[in-house]
């Protein structure tokens, strides 16, 4: 196993490093939250980092013909292979260092994937990567809830009812995406008991996200972070609301922020306040009605949506995270 970098937790937003590893000049949309996720991710990780990116917006838009905004080394990998590329890169580094072919120093390995690459196609590869305890790596899934690069097709992470190229609302069938969003991070946490760190985050909460990246890179072994990224193109809203919609996703209880470190679950930010009952969830309609992809929803649909979110907080074993109940009579 290679050594780990020292990346202390950042106390206060003013102590976030100034140094950039992902700079200007990328062909993303105005207000692209995924670009912000990339920027903050590498800010947290620092310059001694190798980034591997699977196909998606953050590949295509960031490597516009023979140019790049990356300061740190970056390499493209295929759509479904963020997990295997991360393992391969970490294993390669470990082997080169063991053989003395390169200096033995701590180097962060991060592989990112979109929800198409991570939640759909690359899930098996990520699962395999999270089993290889001997390699230090982070897999970061930036989730804009669709295949946004190819003009918004449904992914396993698209929410119920959302308009997309694959689910346009019609006169006869109003709701064309009838699948509920996949519960990815808890699935990976539950399925890989030896994986020491799984977290969810949002770049709208920049400090929280920075610290989660740092914890993931310093705890040891393979880790996974799932980040929700409001997408002005696919969600159809004025780009200036990217930050606000990220916050609304959390405040409505639709996106739960937490970290699972060494088997312990800790809710973070507003999710923790909601979980503790200190804060009420905002109505989901406040979030849905701000987005053009949900403009066709009727009152009935909004109530249905709210009902599903209420259930996840009121009926699930672990509110918002584990969607089943303990065996009868055992108590939880």
């Amino acid at each position: 196993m290679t050594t780990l970098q020292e990346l202390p937790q950042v106390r206060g937003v003013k102590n976030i490093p100034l140094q950039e590893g992902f700079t200007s000049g990328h062909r993303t949309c105005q207000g692209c939250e995924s670009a912000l996720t990339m920027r903050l991710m590498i800010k947290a990780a620092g310059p001694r980092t190798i980034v591997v990116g699977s196909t998606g917006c953050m590949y295509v838009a960031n490597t516009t013909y023979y140019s790049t905004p990356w300061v740190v080394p970056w390499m493209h990998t295929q759509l479904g292979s963020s997990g295997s590329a991360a393992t391969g890169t970490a294993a390669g580094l470990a082997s080169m260092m063991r053989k003395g072919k390169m200096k033995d120093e701590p180097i962060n390995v991060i592989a990112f994937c979109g929800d198409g690459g991570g939640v759909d196609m690359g899930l098996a590869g990520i699962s395999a990567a999270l089993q290889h305890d001997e390699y230090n790596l982070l897999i970061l899934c930036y989730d804009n809830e669709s295949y946004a690069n190819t003009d918004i097709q449904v992914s396993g992470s698209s929410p119920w009812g959302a308009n997309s190229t694959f689910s346009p609302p019609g006169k006869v069938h109003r709701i064309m995406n009838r699948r509920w969003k996949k519960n990815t991070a808890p699935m990976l946490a539950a399925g890989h008991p030896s994986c020491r760190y799984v977290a969810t985050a949002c770049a709208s909460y920049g400090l929280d996200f920075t610290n989660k990246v740092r914890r993931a890179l310093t705890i040891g072994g393979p880790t996974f972070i799932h980040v929700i990224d409001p997408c002005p193109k696919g969600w159809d809203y004025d780009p200036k609301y990217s930050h606000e919609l990220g916050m609304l996703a959390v405040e409505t209880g639709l996106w739960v922020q937490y970290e699972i470190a060494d088997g312990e679950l800790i809710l973070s930010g507003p999710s923790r306040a909601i979980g503790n009952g200190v804060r009420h969830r905002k109505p989901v309609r406040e979030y849905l009605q701000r987005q053009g992809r949900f403009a066709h929803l009727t009152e009935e649909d909004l109530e249905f949506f709210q009902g599903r979110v209420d259930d996840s907080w009121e009926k699930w074993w672990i509110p918002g995270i584990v969607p089943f109940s303990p065996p009868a009579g055992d108590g939880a």
Partner: protein
Amino acid sequence: MSTVAVEVVYRGIFQKTLARNIVRSIVFAARKEGKYGTAFGRYGDSPERNGIPAKQFAIVADDAEELEENLAVYEAQEVDVTINVDDTMCKGIESWAWYGLQPINALTKPGGTLIVTSRQETDALIEDIHRKDEPYNLSVLTSVPSFSGLWVYKDDHTDVRILGALAKVCPQLVSLESMVEAIQDQGWDDLKVRSAERAYERAGLRPVEPGEGNDETPFTFDLPGWTTMEEGLVIRGIEQGGGFRGAEGGYQPVRNSVFKKYSTRSMRPIVNFETCIKCTLCWLQCPDTCFDVTPDGLYDANLESCCGCGVCEAVCPVPECVTMINEAEFNDNASQYEAWQQNPEGYKQWMASLIEGEKKVERTHGFHHVGGYDEQLAAAGED
């Protein structure tokens, strides 16, 4: 025997439906006259990104063979009419890296026409548009640029008004009658037909003489050829950043030198350095890394890399500390911090006048909430 080519230059995603409505209707109208036509988007613009300038074309020919000669091209060599649906693109457009800044009238034929939707005066627009060696005509359609999104279209009649004006300024393309038929065929109501007819009546031409206009030389690059590319398609990373403008303190990242992105911007932030509380939020939440950190802890928007998303204004906790202003008000990308340092009082007045002016014209960038477009259209109707 003749071919007529029209290009629509538009803001990616925001005006995608608008551009499609225009180029398709042109082809539908041409078919009414027994001509042949095709409408297509520039291949390289896909996947489109919000705000990044993109193009769609309509080519109309007398027979199928002639049309074929003009197909399978990346971008037409020259067009009879250029339609620009957002006046801030008059300053030039940069679509991709190594592309440089393309003047808005780059493809407009000698004697051709540039149609612009704008509320600016014609002469103010000519100041922005790069000069050409050949004469061409400018036709201004008075309108606030129409922006919507991928799923919900703001039907403010900009599409049919442009079609009406187009029939007037380019009669060799199609007649107004065919255009009206094409509008009706698409199930659009009589109000839209009337909007097209009114635009036809009002459309005027302002001849632009050779050499008239913006004398700036648009920035260009040499595209690396295959012999100059590095082995294994290695692309050199960006250098580490350092102190603010070469100074000890602060921080300034090095940026991608071949893709600047500022032509994506239709609004820009102006910063009040005196009321700034240094909370870091504009800098932290900027997806484009556009804020340089000054030695005294202020944040100066680097206007070569700002694409005008407006997140900085949205996150700033101080009223009118960061304010988004219509890009048409500006003629350069100079540093605001330096301007403020040189003349704090003058900067304050300049800023106040811009903010005051901004309140008069609402410029929206897409969907705000369900029913929002209807409210905007109703409010516009009352004017």
